[in-house]
Each structure stands twice: as structure tokens, then as C-alpha cells.
């Protein structure tokens, strides 16, 4: 039997179809993945993301540790609550994981990582933190709920305790607030869907109550299936599919997350990335729209004038009504045209700019 989040019983009771996900028993959908997808784009949906890895990093040298650990520059984050998206690299520049780090205090940063990478992430963090005397504390006793969609913020704010509500209402995108007075609620204006909303890290007992109260207000529970199509439309990378230890951020559409400046910040993987940049990055991650009918799937071959590539994440896009994908193709490929081998046939596809969908609006021409 896999691990269960504190909301497992709620998922079963609400009709969730349970699957194994990275060792967790999680809902893939609650009846219709497509309806759930539309609910998030048009109103609001809630996701149980308690399986994700929340780690608190504390100590006087926490920032110095993150300067070394992260490919992105933690010094860009100075205001309390500010969040930073970054890859955590190995010495070869391979992506160990992609994480969000929140600045709480100078001696306290909170890191949120993926579920499937938990053990290796913790081992790596502990190993790298030792010389900095930083305490690495996973927080499995906390639950995490994401509420996303155009009406999500208002619905969540209504349910927050007065002080927290006032502060949370003023949060800019990619900022968080920690309310330690009333049971340690951590509210961040972040998400994984291309919609506005909050992610809330909170004690287990409060999580069950929040889930129920959101449901009473008509917020739909959303399974992992729609979470994947929403993030694909939003143009966000998925660890293990779009990037991994076998690829660098430069080959994974994440060059923008690498903090090259200042040149003397010696982060793990920097030398390897500089070497790759100097030699020429061989591949790039692009976005595809399938011209005709059919569905793009992971690992299908993509043919370009500059050579073959591979789909890293493919699915049907409910918002576009077409199939979309991310694909790793030769860096030398230019232009929009390519072909994807689907079940033995070459089907025309188009290389487009990300995101496919932002705040409910289709951003690519069809």
C-alpha cells in the first residue's frame, strides 16, 4: 500500500479514482479530468498536493548555502515572503530537481520540491548543508492545498482568519506569508496552472477543515490528471519528463532560471553549464501544437530539418481542443514546421511560443 495524505478519505468520499503516484495513493480524477480542467480555467479548483516535499532550511548561513545549492541566484530574493523558482543541479549540470524556495527570514528559508524525488533531494540537501551548518528539516506533518482559478483567491480569502486574510489579500504574485500565531499557516500566491490562486501549507487538522469548507463553497476537487494538462498548457516543466539528471537547464527551456550574475557565485553545476554554453548547447525544449487530430504522447519522435527529437510531455489540451506537447529537438532546428511520428505515421505539428494558455486565454494561434 502506498502512502496516503491526510485528505485521502476525502478523495475517496468525493469519488476520486485513486492511482499510485510516486508511492502515494492519489486521485487521478473525480469522474472527468476534462471537466476538472475547465473548472480551474473558468472558476476554481482545489488540489491536494500534500505529497510534495516541504523542507525548512534554518541557520545563520542559510542564504550562503542556497547561493551554492541553487542554479538561480537566491540574492534576487530580499523581501520577506518572496519566492524563487530554481533548479538544483549536480556537478555535471544535471537537474536533481526543480524547487521553489521562499524567503521567510534571513535564517529561515522554506523549500518545496517534488514528491517522487523526496529521498534523493533530502540526501543531497543534507550532504550539501553540512559545511554551512544549516538544519534540513522535512515537514511531513504539514499538509498542502493549492486553490487555483479566476475565482480562487476570493474564495480562499473568505476562509482565512482576519489577520491572515488582510495580509494574504495584499500578496503580490510569487510572494508568501507565514502566519505563525494561529497554528502555522503558510499562504503563497503561487501555483502550477497558469491561473491566479494560492498554495497553502498548513497543519493536517486545519487542512481537512479547509478542504471541506472550500467544497461547501463549490470549489471542485481536481485530480492529478487535470493538474498535468493545466501545467502543460501553462508551459511549466515537469520533473522526470521535461528535465532530469540527464539534462541541463539549458537543454530544458530553463536557461532563464540560471543566475549567471555575479560571475563569482560558484553554484553547484556552474562549471559544467559554462562549458556546455561555450561548446554550444546541443538541444532545446520547445512547445508543439499538433495540426490535425490525434494525441501527442511522451517519447514520440519529432522530425525537424535539423534532425530528430523527442516529445517529453504530450497530451490533449482541453482549452485548445487540440493536442499539445513539449519536445526536445536539435538546437539548430529553426522555423515552425516539424512532424511527429504517431503510430507509424508522420503528422504535421507546429513549434510555438509558450505559454499555450495564460489566465484562461489561448496564447497561440490555431
Amino acid at each position, binding site marked *: 500500500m502506498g502512502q496516503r495524505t491526510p485528505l485521502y478519505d476525502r478523495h475517496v468520499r468525493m469519488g476520486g479514482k485513486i492511482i499510485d503516484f510516486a508511492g502515494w495513493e492519489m486521485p*487521478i*480524477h473525480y469522474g*472527468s*479530468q*476534462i471537466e476538472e480542467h475547465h473548472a480551474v480555467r473558468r472558476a476554481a479548483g482545489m488540489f491536494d498536493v500534500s505529497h510534495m516535499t516541504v523542507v525548512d532550511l534554518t541557520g545563520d548561513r542559510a542564504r550562503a548555502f542556497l547561493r551554492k545549492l541553487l542554479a538561480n541566484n537566491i540574492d534576487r530574493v530580499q523581501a520577506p515572503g518572496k519566492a524563487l523558482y530554481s533548479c538544483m543541479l549536480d556537478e555535471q549540470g544535471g537537474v536533481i530537481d526543480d524547487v521553489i524556495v521562499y524567503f521567510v527570514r534571513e535564517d529561515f528559508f522554506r523549500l518545496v520540491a517534488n514528491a517522487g524525488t523526496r529521498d534523493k533531494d533530502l540526501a543531497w540537501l543534507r550532504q550539501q548543508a553540512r559545511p554551512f551548518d544549516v538544519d534540513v528539516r522535512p515537514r511531513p506533518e504539514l499538509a498542502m492545498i493549492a486553490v487555483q482559478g479566476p475565482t480562487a483567491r476570493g474564495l480562499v480569502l473568505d476562509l482565512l482568519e482576519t489577520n491572515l486574510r488582510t495580509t494574504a489579500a495584499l500578496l503580490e504574485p510569487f510572494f508568501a506569508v507565514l502566519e505563525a500565531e494561529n497554528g502555522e499557516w503558510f499562504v503563497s500566491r503561487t501555483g502550477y496552472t497558469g491561473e491566479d490562486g494560492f498554495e497553502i501549507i498548513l497543519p493536517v487538522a486545519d487542512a481537512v477543515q479547509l478542504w471541506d469548507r472550500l467544497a461547501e463553497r463549490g470549489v471542485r476537487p481536481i485530480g492529478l*490528471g487535470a493538474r498535468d*494538462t493545466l501545467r502543460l498548457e501553462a508551459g511549466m516543466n515537469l520533473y522526470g519528463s521535461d528535465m532530469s539528471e540527464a539534462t541541463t537547464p539549458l537543454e530544458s527551456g530553463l536557461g532563464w532560471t540560471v543566475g549567471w550574475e555575479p560571475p563569482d557565485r560558484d553554484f553547484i553545476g556552474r562549471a559544467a553549464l559554462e562549458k556546455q554554453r561555450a561548446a554550444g548547447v546541443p538541444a532545446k525544449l520547445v512547445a508543439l501544437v499538433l495540426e490535425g*487530430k*490525434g*494525441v501527442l*504522447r511522451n517519447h514520440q519522435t519529432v522530425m525537424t530539418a535539423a534532425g530528430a527529437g523527442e516529445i517529453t510531455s504530450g*497530451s*490533449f489540451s*482541453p482549452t485548445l481542443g487540440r*493536442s499539445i506537447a513539449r519536445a526536445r529537438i536539435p538546437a539548430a532546428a529553426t522555423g515552425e514546421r516539424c512532424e511527429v511520428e504517431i*503510430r507509424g505515421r508522420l503528422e504535421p505539428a507546429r513549434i510555438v511560443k509558450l505559454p499555450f494558455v495564460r489566465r484562461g486565454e489561448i496564447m497561440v494561434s490555431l
Partner: protein
Amino acid sequence: MSNIPADLKYTRSHEWLRLNTDGTAVIGITDHAQDQLGDMVYVEVPDTGRSLAAGEACAVVESVKAASDVYAPLAGEVLEGNASLADAPEAVNQDPYGSGWLLKLKLSDDNPAGLMDAAAYTAFLASEEQ
């Protein structure tokens, strides 16, 4: 609990078959299969006149989650593929035994050996779930 109509035959790969008295048959995927696959987004049916061997892949149903082959339960010639599914693949979810049918076959062998009746398919699903 899946809907398993008593008047149909079933395969271990979750196709259903409605045998008509004139030697033709209608084929689709079962309620259990559509439920397992989830929301359908694309269905590919065979061309009229195509000759199928028993067990041959003859259609593709694609849900958001995965693409799955559909196999011909018996040998025969395709009389018609359900063209309406090109624009309404969700019919396979909503009405798997009705408007969500996939193809009609003129059977070259009218002996439905190896197919399960509703009771046997019910027992088969129960054994698969264990």
C-alpha cells in the same frame, strides 16, 4: 459497478460484440474499459472494406491519459466505422453500448467461440480486480 448488458458478447481485452442474425456484428469497448481509460479525446476507426483477422488491432481509442488499441473479436470485413466519433469522441464515455459504437463487421466466421457472455465477463472483471 460496470454496466454489462446481457445480450452482448465480450472479450478479455474489453471489447463488446453485438451479433445480429444476418451475420453482421457491431463492436465497441465496454463500460468498464471506457471508465478505466477516462475522458476520450480522439477515436480512430477502420475504413470500410478493410479485412480483419480475429485479434487484429482495428481501432484506436485515445483518452487524455493513453492511447489504446481495440481488437477485432472475430474475423470479418468492415462494413462501417462510426464516423460521428471524429467530432464526438466523448460518446464512447457517455454511451459505450449505443452511440459510442466503433465499427460494424460482416463476419467471415459466425461461430463466436472464445467470447464471453455477460456472466463470464462479470466474473472475469471480478478476477482482474483482485
